């Protein structure tokens, strides 16, 4: 499980996260919603340490991630090598896919296992083929990203994240850059992952999808979690006035 306690971050003098607390149980799916600039994407990037943060801590199965505190030297970030080891327990899928354009679909998926986890080539390739079959792209194994639609690229990105055999998957608005008719195929792939009972955190604007897939929804505003509950609690019986306003505008 993941435990986030008192997470704080500033961009210069501007606070973007003002003390976020969130627990995610094994197999749980949590959706983060809120208007743009509320800090939900920053929170996701902090979990994967793509952003450094200024206070608070994140634990995965009891192990403190990214920073060490000791009496003598105070708070300091873990070494680059340790951060790499920790990152391999997580997968992240970006809004803009971020595939490597000079590699084929299979090479994209296999890169992490091969060079970060030192999985033997044949084994990594078998894993890659299996995952690409799973996201329905076994026919595109030797295509380059530029030859794929946005939806297909995003499915490759999901396979790439899964190839690290992560304990937790992070999704950063993975359908917002897609044409409407391509959203469904990506949502189908994410839906199919539910049977893996893997932890997932989704930043999303698609409230219908969040309601369907998430066990809990967290509403963020001005850098904190203002309301947290089941989809029915958050979407149907909101208490916070700004959340009510947010939902009214989203309809």
């Amino acid at each position, binding site marked *: 499980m993941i435990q986030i306690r008192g997470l704080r971050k500033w961009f210069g003098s501007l606070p973007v996260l003002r003390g976020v607390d969130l627990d995610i149980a094994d197999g749980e799916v949590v959706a983060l919603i809120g208007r743009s600039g509320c800090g939900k994407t920053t929170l996701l990037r902090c979990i994967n340490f793509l952003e450094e943060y200024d206070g608070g801590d994140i634990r995965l199965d009891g192990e403190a991630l990214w920073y060490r505190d000791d009496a003598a030297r105070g708070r300091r970030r873990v070494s680059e090598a340790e951060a*790499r080891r920790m990152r*391999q327990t997580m997968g992240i899928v970006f809004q803009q896919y971020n*595939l*490597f354009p000079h590699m084929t679909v299979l090479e994209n998926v296999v*890169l992490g296992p091969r060079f*970060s986890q030192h999985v033997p080539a044949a084994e990594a390739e078998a894993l890659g083929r299996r995952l690409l079959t799973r996201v329905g792209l076994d026919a595109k194994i030797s295509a380059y990203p530029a030859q794929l639609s946005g939806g297909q690229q995003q499915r490759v990105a999901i396979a*790439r994240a899964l190839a690290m055999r992560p304990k937790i998957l992070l999704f950063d608005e993975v359908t917002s850059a897609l044409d409407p008719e391509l959203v469904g195929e990506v949502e189908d792939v994410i839906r199919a992952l539910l049977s893996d009972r893997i932890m997932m955190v989704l930043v999303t604007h698609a409230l219908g999808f969040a309601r369907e897939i998430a066990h809990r929804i967290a509403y963020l505003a001005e850098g904190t979690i203002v309301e947290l509950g089941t989809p029915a609690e958050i979407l149907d019986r909101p208490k916070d006035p700004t959340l009510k306003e947010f939902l009214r505008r989203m309809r």
Partner: protein
Amino acid sequence: MTFARWIAIYGPTYVTGLGWTAMTALGAALGAIGWGCVLLLLRLSGPGPARAVDAYVQLFRNTPVLLPIYLLYFGLPLVGLPWPAVICGGLALVLQNGAYVAEILRGGLKAIDRVQFDAARSIGLSPWNTFRKVLLPQVLVYSIPSLGNQVVLLVKDTSLLSAITVTELTMQAKLLTEQTGAAYEAFVVVALLYLLLVSATEITFRAAHRAVRWH
């Protein structure tokens, strides 16, 4: 003497020269691109090395290539390294052109989307693997046209090795002129052969650029 007869008699001389020129240019081009990649890696590895690379690049951009050629040819024997002239000259071309290649690759770096670094970090790639597998292949491909221009300049600069006794094309033409007095014949053929080499270089790089399927 007719042109055909000239070719019939001195053809083999030109072939020898062409061989030396082509081999030197090929070796120096590969060396310069490799050295340019090393300089790029150094530049990315911290502010100290980056300043050193900048100074190196500025020095070589603002001095003529004949100076490093003479430096290695006359200087290496003095420090106990009596290497053959073609090695000294080739090395000088590598040092000089490597500086330009490093600048070209730095330009190519700008074409790479910043978010790819996020992707590389998120799958736990080490800095070395990120450079080797993600950065460098893309930078090299984006830079193919500019690298082609640089290699053309390098091919032409091999002619300067005639000044340190390398028996490449220009040297052969000089020897033929002194031997026969027929400067026009000697040098026009050599000029045509250089045009051929330069055109072949350009065609090769254009084909390489087209052969990359992913962009």
